[in-house]
């Protein structure tokens, strides 16, 4: 009998088919004459419900539904770096070469390039025993990234045959292994993995090192950990995307997976234009060489948007298994949640809060839990860090996606509309944001930056909180009634905001700042505060203290002192002390 189903119902991206009792849930299928790609989401008797990843316009009842026999899977192998894919791993450049400027339906399942030849170096010998996840060959995929080929997680055995080093295409076998039952398996340059299933690891290990981003408000105030999870919520116009781009550019991860999930087309074009020109400060190579882009813009089919998050995380896990630190930016998880809601509505499921399906929290949890610091099957230490942007409707953080995200992330960087209106960028609110990683990373900071780094941080945070409290009083009665030491707090808080927290993504020096410079800048501000405070205490009017040129110099040090001359910050500290010592002498 035929294994094909028949289209019965069409409602936007949701299609129901009959005669499909033998199909499995999550199986990938092709729908209709044009072979649209879809996935079975539920079965009821011989009726299957399918979400279709392409436009269903023109589809007819009675057209055929064919099984592919496998769940929605990715081809994991060389050719992903520097490339841009849609939500189901179809390379957009390839699509462009087939169909020009617009994306049609029915182009079929494409994936990484099957024709390209890679220079392969085989690292095993005949007779070697290979466990799951063990490396058997290497490819220098880009100049900065060595691509290591691994035995798929569900396989192990003895090497019985192998080819010489040389050029191979991804589907050529290069090593053969024999498993326990005596069956021989071909190992090629590629392996398939279903997107909705996490790739196995050996074990999780505790988080201990930061993801250094070069962004002062993050590294110094709300650090992100390698293997951590971060929520980045903000209404429109608060700079989510710029912040995500900054993180993608400057984070010290080995691999970046950037998912443009339901966002703007021009933004992805911008990334494509900008990244190849940017140089990684650590490897001196173009940033694009370590980057994978996934673009399922808002106007592309909604079901593929739902899948794009899983596609991204599966790619990230593959590179993690090679021993790399991977950071994944999802912009934005709200669009993904909305895709869930849209499809759920079409499936006529019972809605929960604000129309979102009741399984929203569990899906979010499953996604964020795929992050972590791990020991891989091959025994290496590696990590996945997830930074998920959230676009709360109306900028209201009490909506379901933000609320639920907050439950599953450890760092929460709240972007603030008021700061954005004042063009205070990055508009991360320094009072409502938090990072649960501060204590976990304390040892690392004191060993690699300075023992008093976190102490300084706490002091600055206290000053900012104090300012907030004082501002309430000022709002009621004006600044004049405050005692001088409190007005000084206001002045210093302003200095922290302007001179430290605000960071200009378009300025050549300010766009990325090393931890060492951040630490020294904090010290400069601290010295300014302590010295000015001494002056205030002996009764010098604040207007005099404020008039000194050093006060201005501190605000502008981020521009005036280039990254390769941070010793000038020490000189600035020296000058602060001298100036205010002199001022005190004059008064005494």
């Amino acid at each position, binding site marked *: 009998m035929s294994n094909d189903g028949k289209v*019965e*119902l069409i*409602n936007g991206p949701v299609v129901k088919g009959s005669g499909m009792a033998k199909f499995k849930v999550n199986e990938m299928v092709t729908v209709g004459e044009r072979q649209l790609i879809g996935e079975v989401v539920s079965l009821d008797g011989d009726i299957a419900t399918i979400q279709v990843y392409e*436009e*269903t316009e*023109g*589809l*007819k*009842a*009675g057209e055929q539904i064919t099984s592919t026999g496998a769940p929605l899977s990715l081809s994991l192998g060389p050719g992903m770096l520097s490339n*841009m894919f849609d939500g189901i791993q179809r390379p*957009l450049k390839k699509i*462009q070469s087939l*169909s*020009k*400027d*617009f*994306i*049609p339906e029915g182009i079929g399942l494409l994936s990484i390039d099957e024709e390209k030849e890679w220079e392969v170096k085989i690292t095993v010998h005949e007779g070697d025993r290979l466990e799951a996840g063990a490396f058997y060959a290497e490819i220098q995929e880009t100049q900065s990234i060595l691509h290591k080929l691994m035995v798929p997680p569900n396989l192990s055995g003895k090497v019985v045959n192998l080819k010489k080093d040389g050029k191979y295409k991804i589907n050529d076998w290069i090593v053969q292994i024999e498993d326990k039952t005596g069956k021989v398996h071909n190992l090629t340059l590629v392996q398939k993995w279903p997107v909705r299933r996490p790739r196995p690891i050996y074990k999780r290990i505790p988080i201990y090192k930061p993801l250094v981003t070069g962004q002062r408000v993050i590294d110094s105030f709300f650090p992100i950990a390698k293997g951590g999870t971060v929520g980045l919520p903000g*209404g*429109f*116009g608060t700079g989510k995307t710029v912040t995500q781009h900054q993180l993608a550019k400057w984070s010290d991860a080995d691999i970046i997976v950037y998912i*443009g999930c*339901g966002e*703007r*087309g*021009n933004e992805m*074009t911008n990334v*494509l*234009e900008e990244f190849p020109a940017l140089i990684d400060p650590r490897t001196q190579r173009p940033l694009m060489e370590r980057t994978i882009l996934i673009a399922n*813009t*808002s*106007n592309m089919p*909604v079901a593929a948007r739902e899948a794009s998050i899983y596609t991204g995380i599966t790619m990230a896990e593959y590179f993690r298994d090679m021993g790399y630190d991977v950071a994944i930016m999802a912009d934005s998880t709200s669009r993904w949640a*909305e*895709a869930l*809601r*849209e499809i759920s*509505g079409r499936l*006529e499921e019972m*809605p929960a809060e*604000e*129309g979102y399906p009741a399984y929203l929290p569990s899906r979010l949890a499953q996604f964020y839990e795929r992050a972590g610091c791990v020991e891989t099957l091959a025994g290496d230490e590696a990590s996945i860090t997830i930074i998920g942007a959230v*676009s709360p*409707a*109306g*900028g209201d953080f009490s909506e379901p996606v933000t609320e639920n995200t907050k439950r599953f992330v450890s760092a929460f960087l709240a972007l603030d509309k008021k700061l954005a*209106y*004042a*063009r*205070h960028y990055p508009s991360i609110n320094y009072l409502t944001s938090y990072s649960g990683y501060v204590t976990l990373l304390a040892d690392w900071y004191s060993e690699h930056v300075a023992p008093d780094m976190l102490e300084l941080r706490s002091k600055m945070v206290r000053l900012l909180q104090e300012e907030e409290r004082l501002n309430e009083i000022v*709002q*009621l*009665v*004006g*600044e004049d009634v405050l005692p001088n030491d409190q007005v000084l707090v206001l002045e210093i808080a302003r200095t922290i905001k302007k001179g430290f927290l605000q960071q200009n993504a*378009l300025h050549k020096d300010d766009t990325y700042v090393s931890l060492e410079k951040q630490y020294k800048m904090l010290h400069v501000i601290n010295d300014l505060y302590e010295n000015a405070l001494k002056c205030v205490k002996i009764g010098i009017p604040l207007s005099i203290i404020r008039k000194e040129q050093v006060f201005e110099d501190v*605000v*502008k040090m981020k*521009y005036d002192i280039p990254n390769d001359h941070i010793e000038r910050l020490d000189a600035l500290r020296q000058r602060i002390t001298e100036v205010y010592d002199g001022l005190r002498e004059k008064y005494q």
Partner: protein
Amino acid sequence: MKKEYLKLDKVEGPLIVLSNIEGVAYDEMVHIKMDTGEVRKGKVIKIEGKTVVVQVFEGTAGISTANASVKFTGEPLQLPLSKEILGRTFNGIGEPVDGSFQVSAKEKYNVNGRPINPVARRYPRNFIQTGISAIDCLMTLIRGQKLPIFSGNGISHNELAVQIVKQAKIKGAHADNFAVVFGAMGVRHDDAAYFTRSFEAAGVLDHVVMYLNLADDPITERISTPRCALTAAEYLAFKENMHVLVVITDMTSYSEALREMSSTRGEVPSRKGYPGYLYSDLSTIYERAGMLEGAEGSITLIPILTMPNDDITHPIPDLTGFITEGQIVLSRELNQKGIYPPIDVLPSLSRLMKDGIGEEYTREDHLALSNQIFSSYSKVQDVRSLAQIIGEDDLGDIDKLYLKFGRAFEEEFVAQGSNENRTMVETLDLGWKILSILPKSELDRIEPEILEKYYPKERRC
């Protein structure tokens, strides 16, 4: 020979239901011939086995279950397009309503279009000079951008849109390759007439294509109106290499039509009763703006929407803001103060501005100047609320200067005549002049060299 079906199962609102139908495609066009001889158009919106649900564009009034014959065309809604459409007026499904001939064209285009491949896009960089200071300096419009106007009922958004269309100078565009596509959804007759008159007065009517679905036209056509407009724009921009400015108004009426259709279909509602796919649906309109790597032309899209109750967090402006590249927000307060254009600069933004201004395009000080104005003007708001509590007289000297700056900024910089066309240089110089009310030490967003070079020698007092 296409089959005709004579019996309808159900007529409900704008929908008709037929059964025992075979070989019908999702989204295909349907012709419904009534016993009076009138032919209406419809679209297949749901197929369930042999039952088909059709949405009738002109409404179902007068249709009974037995008086109509239904023919399936096998094709989606398509527009015949050629350069002949310039200067013409059509309805929401692309039929001429100006009494003139049908458009003759070799090719027909599907109004739904297809998503532009992100790798085929060209990143928009060239600014469009609108001659309006607040826009040019602070939220610069870029060729290929989608920048909506968020307004409210009774605020002068139509005047502003007309002024932009009249004054817009696109680099590389001239009379031969410049076009305006105007789409009206649920707009009142006098508003539509105002646009027509203004285009005529500006002498651009020959370059304008209009798709009109007025307030009393059937709402089902309202959903295809912006799609027709953008299909025409895509044709002009990418096949005829023209620079196209698309104005569509009012997106709120459009979204309400979508909500009405959704509830007729019995779909699960989401925020405020709008369907869960509102975001995806709006994006298939807005994302059609842009430029392609392989084509000369461009589509710059200015959608206008009236915020219900002036609420920017309402789902329509909210979802729009997440898709478009910024927004121009109009303020009722400024409108009442008599300031035209009443642009509320603080929540307004152009996301593409940073890459389309500066030394190469406008002037080196542009970005710093605009950042400083934003920052200083936001300080003005703080000072104003303080002044409300303690009175203006008790403010410090600097704070008093801020109040003065705020007033001058609103009355001289933002405000301008509806025919006043300021060049970019005039706008930037005016910005510096007004900024010089504040002492140099307050201008902390500007690099010292720029400040030195551009801060006026004589401060304004």
